[in-house]
């Protein structure tokens, strides 16, 4: 690692996101959200009517004929009888009717109910997206109001480059949580060179973490490495926070180098056997993995999620990603060999529990990297993302106005 050169820019957030515009955007999102809520209530009404109709249709054939009051004109009734109680003329749609029995009618109605439910689900997903957008805008507005400043520093570390953005850490963490959710949904394909960069960074950081942890346990503190880490990290506060969290979450020893070495030599199949059955973690970890890709050259502490994904090969998606990762890992491994060798004796102690602890370790791991938002990207992406789902499902929400709803109403 050469001496990092630091260049930087300082920009107040208010210049990037003018407050009035942010408020306008927030209002727009609010309007869309209320529209969706109205549609949702309408759909729920339809579903309720449908279920009550199903009940009625099921009860009618219980008698041969029912004595009822028949509506006559606009404001009169006369007593009458409902006969042929098992024959129903069902509207199929587009002014087509069919004679059906009670049971068949119930089937038709159930199918309609299912399609309504699927529409409700789609609408719920849209509303969630909108809510995330709204909360993001709100937080941006508050940040802008507080005159937060975006600080960008460019480190030149051989071929590595990293950016970071800092502000008050407490504000960042809630926004990070929100952006996490959004990044989950927005992550597309990942890029190999980002992997390479992240991987090399990851190796360095893991080495530090490991050394630090070993220092805790073995009283073998490697302060130089920690200092290096902090020097190269530009948001030191966050690092300490996340490193602490990292250590808390590390239950057993974890040898990143084992991962690195194995990864460079072996096939994923070995690791497949180790961490089967962690489906839930898989998703979470792949999402965190995606975070790293999205936070594009951001400095991350303890990027343990990456080796984690190598361990969690039970998912096709991750396997795909890992395949992309493999070549870049191989490329970066030679450069990291020195640091790897350094830690081999440290990690030898950890090799034993690694096998059994991998799965446990995986479950205890969480992404402790500092996800730093690149808010402009998100802003551009979120409107883009929201228009496409709304377009694709645009026909569906308007469908409730269809003639399925009682024509006589």
């Amino acid at each position: 690692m050469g001496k990092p050169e630091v260049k930087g820019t300082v920009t107040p957030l208010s210049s990037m996101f003018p407050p009035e515009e942010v408020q306008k955007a927030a209002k727009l999102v609010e309007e869309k959200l209320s529209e969706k809520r109205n549609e949702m209530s309408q759909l729920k009404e339809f579903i309720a009517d449908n279920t009550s109709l199903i009940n009625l249709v099921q009860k009618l054939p219980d008698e041969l004929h029912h004595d009822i009051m028949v509506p006559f004109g606009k404001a009169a009734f006369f007593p009458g009888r409902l006969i042929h109680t098992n024959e129903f003329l069902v509207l199929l749609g587009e002014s087509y009717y069919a004679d059906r029995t009670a049971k068949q009618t119930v089937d038709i109605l159930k199918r309609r109910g299912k399609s309504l439910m699927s529409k409700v689900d789609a609408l719920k997903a849209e509303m969630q997206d909108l809510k995330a957008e709204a909360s993001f805008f709100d937080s941006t507005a508050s940040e802008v109001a507080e005159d937060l400043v975006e600080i960008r520093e460019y480190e030149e570390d051989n071929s590595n480059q990293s950016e970071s953005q800092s502000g008050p850490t407490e504000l960042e963490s809630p926004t990070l949580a929100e952006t996490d959710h959004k990044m989950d949904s927005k992550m597309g394909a990942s890029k190999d060179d980002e992997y390479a960069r992240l991987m090399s960074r990851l190796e360095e950081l893991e080495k530090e973490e490991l050394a630090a942890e070993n220092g805790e346990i073995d009283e073998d503190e490697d302060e130089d490495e920690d200092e290096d880490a902090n020097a190269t990290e530009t948001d030191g506060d966050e690092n300490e926070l996340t490193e602490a969290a990292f250590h808390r979450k590390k239950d057993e020893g974890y040898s990143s180098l084992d991962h690195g070495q194995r990864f460079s030599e072996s096939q994923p199949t070995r690791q497949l056997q180790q961490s089967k059955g962690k489906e839930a973690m898989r998703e979470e970890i792949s999402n965190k993995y995606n975070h790293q890709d999205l936070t594009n050259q951001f400095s991350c502490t303890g990027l343990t999620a990456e080796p984690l994904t190598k361990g969690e090969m039970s998912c096709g998606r991750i396997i795909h990603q890992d395949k992309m990762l493999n070549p870049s890992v191989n490329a970066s491994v030679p450069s990291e060999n020195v640091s790897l060798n350094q830690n081999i004796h440290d990690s030898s102690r950890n090799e034993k529990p690694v096998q059994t602890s991998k799965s446990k370790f995986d479950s205890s791991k969480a992404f402790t990297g500092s996800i730093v938002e690149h808010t402009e990207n998100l802003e551009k992406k979120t409107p883009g993302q929201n228009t496409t789902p709304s377009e694709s499902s645009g026909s569906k929400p308007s469908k409730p106005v269809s003639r399925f709803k009682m024509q006589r109403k």
Partner: protein
Amino acid sequence: MSSSSTALRELQRDLENKANDLSKLQKDIAKNHQVRKKYTIQLGENELVLKELDLLKEDANVYKLIGPVLVKQDLAEANANVRKRIEYISAELKRLDGSLQDLEEKQHSKREAILKVQQRIQSHQAGKAKA
């Protein structure tokens, strides 16, 4: 002096015309969207009807509501009619898509033209102010 002011007035008239055209285009685009929505709903409904018709037995009674009259129809005939309608609606949707593209392109070019005229007006006014 007067020549430049008449030129200015002409430019402004030009700008007004273009703005009117633009608003017309926007209305057309909005109408297009509406009609597209309607057609999409109808398409969805027809597909549902087709599904239900497929589930019917051969001898089931199918009726069509034509005005106030419920007319008995043959299942095969009803199937054929619904399919034809679906094809027709999809063709209409495609046509509307094409025209929507056209309208959007025209709108785009109109906007650019308006921008240019505005710039010319500004340069004229700047020239007048100098002189």
